[in-house]
């Protein structure tokens, strides 16, 4: 009886997590004890804010873009559907790195040109200075690229969410006289978003990892600082250990929050 309970307790332990936390503690202890690790920690930590800013801003913007695209994709109005599908398929077919290069070196000059064209009267009146591609620093371009890329992924999540809502809910709303937009906002979206909340949260973890790509533009995030530090000190092993440590702290803790969220939603809906 007691043995069984002990066995159940042991088999219930998430050993992968114990291992990771253990390694994390060892890594941290070593780092604090070792002078060179301490220096690397301090250096790489300076990129933490940039990584988080890039991830959070891109994520927030891509949620907005994704919601718009997702609504357009499941709209009854065909041109909207076609345009959003075109965009989503195009972007999803490109590697994120290529999107990043494309926005940074093709998109930014094009955007400057468009803005100059649109705001020409104001610029000639001296209200603004004329835009050039330098008006957008690389961090801005990186955020724009991640937003455009993740907007397409998140749009598909929203679409799946909207489609997961039972057709009967929409019919009931229509039968009560609700308009299409009232039905969407008050009946469909609250249920759709709830259904895809874990998937949306997972995209945040993914965007944190993909934010490392901005280092190719020289943006001073964790990866870029690590890369530069390692190249100048030749401490590749220690530096990339620290870089990996930072990312893992973020991603694993967030993944666990997502799981907790999933469990809570499941419990609520089975009550």
């Amino acid at each position, binding site marked *: 009886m007691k043995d069984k309970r002990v066995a159940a307790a042991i088999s219930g332990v998430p050993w992968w997590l114990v291992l990771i936390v253990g390694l994390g503690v060892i890594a941290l202890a070593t780092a604090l004890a070792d002078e060179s690790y301490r220096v690397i920690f301090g250096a790489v930590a300076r990129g933490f804010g940039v990584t988080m800013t890039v991830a959070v801003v891109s994520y927030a913007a891509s949620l907005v873009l994704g919601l718009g695209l997702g609504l357009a994709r499941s709209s009854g109005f065909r041109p909207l559907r076609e345009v959003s599908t075109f965009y989503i398929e195009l972007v999803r077919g490109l590697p994120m790195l290529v999107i990043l290069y494309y926005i940074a070196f093709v998109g930014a000059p094009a955007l400057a040109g468009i803005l100059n064209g649109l705001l020409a009267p104001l610029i000639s009146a001296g209200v603004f200075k004329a835009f050039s591609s330098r008006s957008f620093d690389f961090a801005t371009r990186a955020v724009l690229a991640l937003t455009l890329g993740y907007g397409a992924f998140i749009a598909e999540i929203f679409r799946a969410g909207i489609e997961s809502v039972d057709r009967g809910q929409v*019919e*009931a709303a*229509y039968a*009560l006289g609700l308009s299409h937009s*009232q039905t969407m906002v008050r009946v469909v979206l609250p249920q759709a978003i709830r259904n895809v909340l874990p998937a949306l949260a997972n995209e945040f973890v993914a965007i944190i990892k993909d934010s490392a790509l901005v280092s190719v533009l020289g943006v001073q995030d964790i990866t870029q600082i690590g890369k530069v530090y390692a190249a100048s000190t030749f401490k590749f092993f220690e530096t990339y250990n620290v870089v990996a440590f930072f990312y893992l702290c973020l991603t694993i803790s967030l993944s666990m929050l997502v799981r907790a969220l999933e469990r809570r939603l499941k419990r609520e*809906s089975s009550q």
Partner: protein
Amino acid sequence: MSAFIRIRDAVKTFSTRGRGGALGLDTVLALDGVTLDVERGEVVLIIGPSGSGKSTLLRSVNRLESLDSGEIWIGDDSVTARRADLRRIREDAGMVFQSFNLFAHMTILDNVSLAPRLVRKVPAAQAREAAVAILERVGLLDKLDRYPRQLSGGQQQRAAIARALAMNPKALLFDEPTSALDPEMIKEVLDVMTGLAEDGMTMMVVSHEMGFARAAADRVVFMDRGRIVEQGKPEELFSDPKEERTRDFIRHIL
């Protein structure tokens, strides 16, 4: 004085998404020229085998389905006009569904008070008060703050009826309201419906509940293959059907 709900030569085809569906070859004629009048305060029961078009007919009255041709009127409002005022039509004719379709993310109280607030712009406090009164009428006063999934099927369907009633409809459309219910819950829903019939509500009911037919229906309409085959008072139609097809069908459900 013309009837309250008037259906004239209603025709509706569905194209099924089978082979040839894209070419419009696989089509099903759901309504094949249906003409029907429902008087104010009348309770009309529509029966017929599955695929006979009875649900399609009902869903055409509040324009959840659009007819291919024919006309439907509710009072002075055309349902089938190209620029029909859908909001007004749906305020006039409430609907109760087979699978309840209560809004899953809202409490019962919010389910009932949502449409009055959004569509009729009733102030929240007033809508709430009215919703409580209606829920009391269907015997759900103790379930106001529950979510649909926490209720039994019979309770959910009574809440769905309350939700439709909250819009003060002039007519109610019931699409197989008891088909998804366990036998012991059917009575509580039929009791609510019979009460509404006695209060003079105009009702179109797609159902095979003989008990309800006898207790509350003024007329029974038998449909088959998109057409009305026969109609009459419940006792006459059930005991002495004129048409062979009606006789066959009634033998099967009795």
